């Protein structure tokens, strides 16, 4: 018979007591698992929002005058007037962007990597109202704005076509099939966009060439949106390189804007971890307390073990075995409870986030719970070895 078998039999006999002792450990690991799971869900939510923002990089002429935005983010201003990005800079922009991504991800792919979507914004009178006409590369634009949905009609697939934002269609009373004229150029509405909740709702989208021709702005662009293919892409480095190498262009990394949100998440994480730390401490004290009580309850058994030849080390080891068991049970229960907690609280903190089981947190939870239980056991165990055998029996 081995010592761990003696401990196991004793734990089975006192199972209710042992479960009671695990409560503190469960609370501690539950808090930590809950915090980690919620934080992960929050991070995923922010990443998915980043995806939704579309562009990872926005290139603007260096001069500002008119506010514009993408999604809910304000991206600075563009000048709809004298200052433009030269269209002939696009190959250079692509070269820099793809080059940096290749370097960062160590890929050799010779093809185009990033999606580059140029836009020319002009103010135009349509049906005697002033609207912003956006000349776009239809293919690139649809890749960048993956959330766009054509509510009526179809997407742009030829010249002289127009795609109207939902609010613009309503205000100008436009529907699919309507024709209108801008600066002598005849355009036909082929589709109406679903509501996006952004500035796009107020705009009319037309193939880039049509706008450039009608407004005599050949080779000119107002903005260029760039979407790298991954969240890990070095957008800040790309922005720096473009800013340095192409004069007259200001590159803004959307991630820099999102970084504020990430920074906030990090702060929340730190706060929650601090709370988790306090909970760990309280949980630890709870375990020490329960185990101290347990020592007193088992003072006779400890006396018996010592009387028949147990050394101090063996008594401490017996307590540590029990702590490991408490830790394993507490870690598993804490993982389950923490994940449940994240399911309930996660969506309240990060609206729309999806909380999921994170399997890797199970061993973390168990390891943490075992460490707490073992540390909390050491003092009661040491205390137990100090009791004289005669006193163990006298107390009974």
């Amino acid at each position: 018979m081995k010592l761990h078998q003696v401990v196991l039999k004793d734990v089975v006999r006192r199972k209710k007591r042992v479960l009671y002792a695990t409560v503190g450990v469960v609370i501690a690991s539950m808090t930590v698992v809950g915090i980690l799971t919620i934080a992960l869900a929050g991070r995923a939510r922010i990443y998915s929002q980043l995806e939704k923002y579309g562009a990872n990089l926005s290139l603007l002429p260096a001069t500002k005058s008119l506010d514009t935005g993408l999604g809910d983010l304000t991206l600075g201003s563009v000048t709809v007037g004298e200052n433009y990005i030269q269209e002939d800079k696009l190959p250079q922009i692509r070269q820099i962007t793809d080059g940096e991504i290749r370097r960062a991800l160590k890929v050799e792919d010779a093809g185009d990597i990033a999606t580059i979507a140029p836009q020319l914004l002009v103010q135009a009178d349509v049906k005697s109202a002033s609207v912003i006409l956006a000349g776009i590369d239809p293919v690139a634009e649809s890749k960048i704005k993956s959330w766009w949905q054509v509510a009526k009609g179809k997407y742009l697939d030829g010249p002289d076509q127009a795609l109207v934002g939902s609010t613009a269609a309503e205000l100008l009373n436009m529907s699919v099939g309507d024709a209108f004229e801008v600066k002598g150029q005849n355009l036909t509405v082929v589709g109406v966009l679903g509501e996006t909740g952004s500035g796009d709702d107020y705009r009319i989208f037309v193939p880039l060439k049509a706008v450039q021709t009608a407004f005599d702005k050949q080779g000119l662009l107002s903005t260029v949106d760039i979407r790298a293919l991954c969240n890990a892409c070095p957008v800040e480095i790309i922005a720096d390189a473009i800013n340095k190498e192409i004069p007259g262009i200001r590159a803004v990394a959307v991630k820099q804007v999102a970084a504020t949100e990430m920074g906030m998440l990090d702060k929340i994480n730190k706060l929650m971890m601090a709370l988790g730390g306090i909970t760990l401490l309280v949980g630890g004290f709870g375990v020490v307390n329960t185990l101290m009580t347990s020592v007193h309850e088992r003072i006779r058994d400890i006396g018996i073990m010592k009387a028949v030849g147990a050394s101090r080390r063996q008594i401490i080891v017996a307590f540590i075995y029990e702590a490991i068991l408490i830790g394993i049970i507490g870690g598993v229960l804490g993982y389950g409870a923490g994940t449940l907690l994240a399911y309930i609280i996660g969506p309240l903190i990060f609206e729309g986030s999806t909380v999921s089981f994170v399997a890797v947190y199970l061993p973390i939870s168990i390891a943490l719970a075992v460490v707490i239980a073992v540390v909390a056991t050491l003092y009661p165990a040491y205390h137990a070895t100090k009791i004289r055998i005669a006193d163990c029996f006298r107390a009974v």
Partner: protein
Amino acid sequence: MLEIKEVSKVYGQGEGSVVALDNVSFDVDKGEYVALMGHSGSGKSTLLNIIGGLDRLSVGSIVLDGQRLDNLDESELVRIRRDKISYVFQQYHLLPSLSALENVLLPLTFRGVDRNGRAMELLEKMGLGKRATHRPSQLSGGEQQRVAIARALVNDPLLTLADEPTGNMDQKTGSEILDLFDQLNAEGRTIIMVTHNPDAAKRAHKVIVLRDGRVVDCIVN
């Protein structure tokens, strides 16, 4: 084999101190069966605990088999409890979560040896072969005490100490337990037994009577 020289034990300090043993001296030879008698509070259990290394003396010395026990540190006392001295208690003191056999095996567990055969053999000798898997709560008082005696013998000690082993039993069961001790003594085992039982005292070779912590009589049967 065992020399107890001028042993005193004082609990507490100053005016509130209590003298439990006062200058106690006697010897026990190998194979001898000694009964310690006296009223409650006479110091007999304290003396037994000090001999067994379960408690410390204040003054004096105890020598077992040529080795002084009173100045040993805790780890050396552990070795003595494992190899040389075993204990039988009035309350049996079995671990409730273990079976009879496992309780007998417990001293071997702490020594790091596995000798199921020896433990089973002792249980059979105690007439408990068929009760080996029973928990203490499933055994009678007499049976529990036999398990405790088997446990005390499993390490083959030099000296067995028994603290009122029949104190919790009716006369018949107590007598059966005393028969067992007689048998063990006849096999050459050295026994010191604290008892109130005059029958037990009659069976011993020597009866040491304590009063207020002092030896007041030594009767050789």
